[in-house]
Each structure stands twice: as structure tokens, then as C-alpha cells.
């Protein structure tokens, strides 16, 4: 670690975002990577205006050219266009999954942590039951039972993922609920709703953010893996995992069919893991400063 970074790390976090980023090269790299992908996903069609679904058997397995920046696949479709379009599918589904998961998990965690007693016990047994099964196997089972489609894939991921958020929020609430500022708010006449959303929920924001950043990577991997297995996106829809599967028979002759979507998955997951790591460091530091000011 060089001197400038050390200096930035030691400066109080209150000075703002600039310090956050310069103190966390990993966070910076992660965010930049993600930014590039977002930009490509949103504006990539300007660079390669090919229909990602258009089959052209005359142009199959072409090398990169001006018209096809990354060449074409076994059906003559533009790989670059398919990657861009797949980015929107993958990132969009991931965002929807995470939002749904938070909408379910966070209120459940608040409720169980605050109510305690029987409600909490019931919930914990349910969660123990779900956790007893490896989450990937559970997702495969659900996707298998309901039939392969993107919608069912999302459903199966949500079914498994909400638990993490509920547990994190529940833990925070249980740790905070007997603290004096919560007691003081209760004595001050705050209603339960206000206690939960004004006083308790903000304490859970940092751990939930960190968890979400790591989960983005995991959800992308799950979606791609299940699509690779044929349980998610169905051909001809461009999705990175499904593209990997499509390219598998041609691995010997045209390895780039698997290389490009594989690299895309790897880079996006890497970006989110870097962001998760960076966020965890930054938020931990902030907590420590809050603990002993000066």
C-alpha cells in the first residue's frame, strides 16, 4: 500500500465519497468495470446494429469484422449483439430478483426480530428447513418442477435468496431493540411502524448493501448456470449461460463461442464481488469511527 492510499484510509470517512473511492482501489475498479458493462448494455446496439436473433447460415462461424465485432456463432448470429442483449437479460433479471428478495426479506426480518416469540420461532423453523437443502439444488428442483422458463427461474432464486436478507435484518433488529435509543423512542410514544422504519431499518442498511453486492454475483452465476443446464432462458433467447451451452458442441473448432459469454460472466461477477468487498471495508471503517470519535 503506498503512502497516498494510507493517508486516504486514515482520513475520516465523513469527508465524503472521494475518500471512500481513493481509499478503496478495489471498489473503484469494481465500479468502473460495472460502469463499462452498463454503458455497453444500454448503448451497445449503437455499435453493432445487428438483430441478436437473426439467423444467417451463410455467415456462420465468421471471424471478427467491422460488421460483426466479435464474429458470428454457429447459426450466423452476431455474437456481440447477443452478448449485449444478454447483458440486459441477465442484469435485468438479477435486479428484479434482488428487488423482490428485499421486498420480501427485509419486512420479514423486521417483523421477526421485533416481535420475537412465537412468530420468530415459526419463521426460524421454516428457514432452517429451507437451509437444510443446498440452495442450488433447491433452485434446480423448483425450476425442474415448474418447467424451464426465465420466470420460474426467477421464482426459484427468490425462494432461496430472501432468507439471507430476512436473517441479516432480524439479527440487526435483535441486537438493537434493547438499546437505550430504542427504549427512549418507545417511551417517547413512537408507534411500532415508526420504531421499525425510522429507528431500526436504517441500522440494517449497511449490512444489507454489502450482502446485496455479493448476491448480485451469485444470482448472475445461478441464472447463468441454470440457463446452461437448460432450466432458464430458452433458445433462441440470448442469455450468457444459454450461450455457453449453445457453444459447447463447437468448443474444439470455435472456442470463442464459449470464451466470450464466459468472460462476460466472469467480469461482471468479479465487478460485483469487488464492489461488495470494497463496500464492506468502507462501512466497517465507518462503524469503527462512529464507535470512538476523535
Amino acid at each position, binding site marked *: 500500500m503506498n503512502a497516498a492510499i494510507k493517508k486516504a484510509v486514515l482520513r475520516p470517512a465523513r469527508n465524503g465519497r472521494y475518500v471512500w473511492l481513493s481509499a478503496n482501489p478495489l471498489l473503484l475498479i469494481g465500479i468502473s468495470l460495472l460502469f463499462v458493462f452498463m454503458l455497453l448494455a444500454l448503448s451497445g446496439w449503437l455499435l453493432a446494429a445487428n438483430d441478436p436473433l437473426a439467423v444467417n447460415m451463410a455467415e456462420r462461424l465468421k471471424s471478427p469484422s467491422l460488421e460483426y465485432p466479435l464474429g458470428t456463432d454457429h447459426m450466423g448470429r452476431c455474437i456481440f449483439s447477443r452478448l449485449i442483449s444478454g447483458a440486459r437479460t441477465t442484469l435485468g433479471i438479477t435486479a428484479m430478483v434482488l428487488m423482490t428478495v428485499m421486498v420480501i426479506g427485509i419486512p420479514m426480518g423486521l417483523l421477526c426480530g421485533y416481535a420475537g416469540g412465537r412468530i420468530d420461532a415459526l419463521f426460524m423453523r421454516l428457514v432452517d428447513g429451507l437451509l437444510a437443502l443446498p440452495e442450488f439444488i433447491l433452485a434446480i428442483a423448483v425450476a425442474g418442477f415448474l418447467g424451464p422458463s426465465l420466470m420460474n427461474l426467477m421464482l426459484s432464486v427468490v425462494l432461496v435468496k430472501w432468507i439471507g436478507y430476512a436473517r441479516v435484518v432480524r439479527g440487526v433488529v435483535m441486537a438493537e431493540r434493547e*438499546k*437505550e*435509543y430504542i*427504549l*427512549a*423512542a*418507545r*417511551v*417517547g*410514544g*413512537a*408507534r411500532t411502524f*415508526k420504531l421499525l422504519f*425510522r*429507528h431500526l431499518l*436504517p*441500522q440494517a442498511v449497511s449490512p444489507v448493501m454489502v450482502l446485496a453486492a455479493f448476491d448480485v454475483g451469485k444470482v448472475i452465476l445461478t441464472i447463468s448456470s441454470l440457463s446452461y443446464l437448460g432450466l432458464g432462458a430458452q433458445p433462441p433467447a440470448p442469455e450468457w449461460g444459454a450461450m455457453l451451452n449453445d457453444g459447447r458442441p463447437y468448443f474444439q473448432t470455435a472456442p470463442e463461442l464459449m470464451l466470450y459469454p464466459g468472460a462476460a460472466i466472469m467480469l461482471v461477477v468479479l465487478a460485483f464481488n469487488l464492489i461488495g468487498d470494497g463496500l464492506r471495508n468502507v462501512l466497517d471503517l465507518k462503524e469503527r469511527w*462512529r464507535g470512538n*470519535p476523535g
Partner: protein
Amino acid sequence: MPPLLEVIKIGKSYGDSVKVLREVSFQIGAGECLGLVGESGSGKSTITRLILGLDKPDSGEIFVSGQAVHRLKGKALRHSRKHVQVVFQDPAASLNPRLRIWKSVVEPLENFPDVEPKFLTNVSGGQRELAAALLDRVGLGSELLDRYPDQLSGGQKQRVAIARGLSLEPKLLVCDEPTSSLDVSVQAQILNLLKELKEELGISYLFISHDIAAVRFMSDRIAVLKDGQLIDQFAAGDLFSPERHPYTRKWTETPA
């Protein structure tokens, strides 16, 4: 007329075996300050929790202005809170670290829009102005309104907690060791402030502490708690009387 606070033979246990309070009874009259002295572990904080309605006694009764608060639930309990407020020991823990000062101070008034304290009737404007008036009441300037708790000193934070405790103009303010986490020089300022406010506003205090000097300074009467039982109750002036319980005398002889 019933006394402001009447506690009758309350008992409380945690778990099966640990009896924290046994048949504790006392009263506090209007405008009176009762000092409650006891070592740590004697049950002082449990008494606070029971009087504030944060916990229910296993046995016995608690009346505030004749109303049996230990039987209240839900909405009725919430509304009874207007009359009894609290200042906790550690001001760093009793203010939400993520709320600006003014929000913490006016929150009780926000919860009870029907309450209009006498000392705030001539304040015009919104919640910020009310918060500023409350801070002024405890000797703090309005430049602190937008700060966060960790930008204030311990004494300032405790003043903020006192302002919040007073905001509803309660009949009784429970002070649970309000000075024991503060520097010695700040302790005296906070005690003086509490005493002034009591005389100006005519509210009653339950002043809990293990600092016998602070209790003597604040209180009209003193009660001594040992192992969950009240073993001695007397007027503050009689602290050094030879009739005191041996335990009380031991307390006055060894400076705490």
C-alpha cells in the same frame, strides 16, 4: 388526591430463580424528587423499566395519577407515556446515531400532536423551531440542531436527552443515573440544570443514582435499595440521623 406515582409491592424475576425486586413500595408526590440509591445489581434499572411500562411486574401495582399503568396495553399504554418520560444513563446510547439532533428532540411531540406544553405555547413555526426552543431550555444553542449525536460532547448529548424528556411536559421524569457516564465537571452542570428545570416546571423526579452526594443534592426524600428490597426511606435532611439503617450509614461513611 392520589400521589403522582404510587408503587405498591412490586416484584419482578427474570428466569426462574433470579428475583430482582421483592415487594418494593414507594410514592412520589407532585413536584417532589425521590432519590433512589443502590449498588449496581440492586434492581434500580428494573424499577425504571417497570415504571416506564417497558416491562410488566410479576406482582404488585403501579399507579400514575391513579391510573393503573401496569395493566395498560397497546394504544392506552402509548398514551399513558405522555406523563412519564426518561433520561437514561448513557447519552451516547440513548440518541439514535443516524438522526439529526432536532429530529430526536421533537420526536415525542411529533408522536403526540395533541400535547401542547405550557413552556412552548409562544413558539411559532414548525418542528425545527420547537426543537430550537427545547434546546434553548436546556442551555444549548440552535447551531446544534442539524448535527448528529457523535458531533456533540457527552454533556451536550445529555442535555439533548433531557430536552427530549421534557418535551411532552411530563408529570414525572425518571432520571436513571443521568450523570454517571459524564466527566465530573459536567456532572455538576447537569445536576444544576435538572434542579432548575424541576423548580421552573414543577415536575416530579425519580432520581436514580449510586452517587449519594448527587442524590442528596437533588432529592426531597431518599430511598435505599439493596438486593431488590427497599430497606430505608427518609427525608433528605435525615440522611445523617442515627436512626438510619446500618447499610445506609455505611454508604454515607465511605465516599462512593
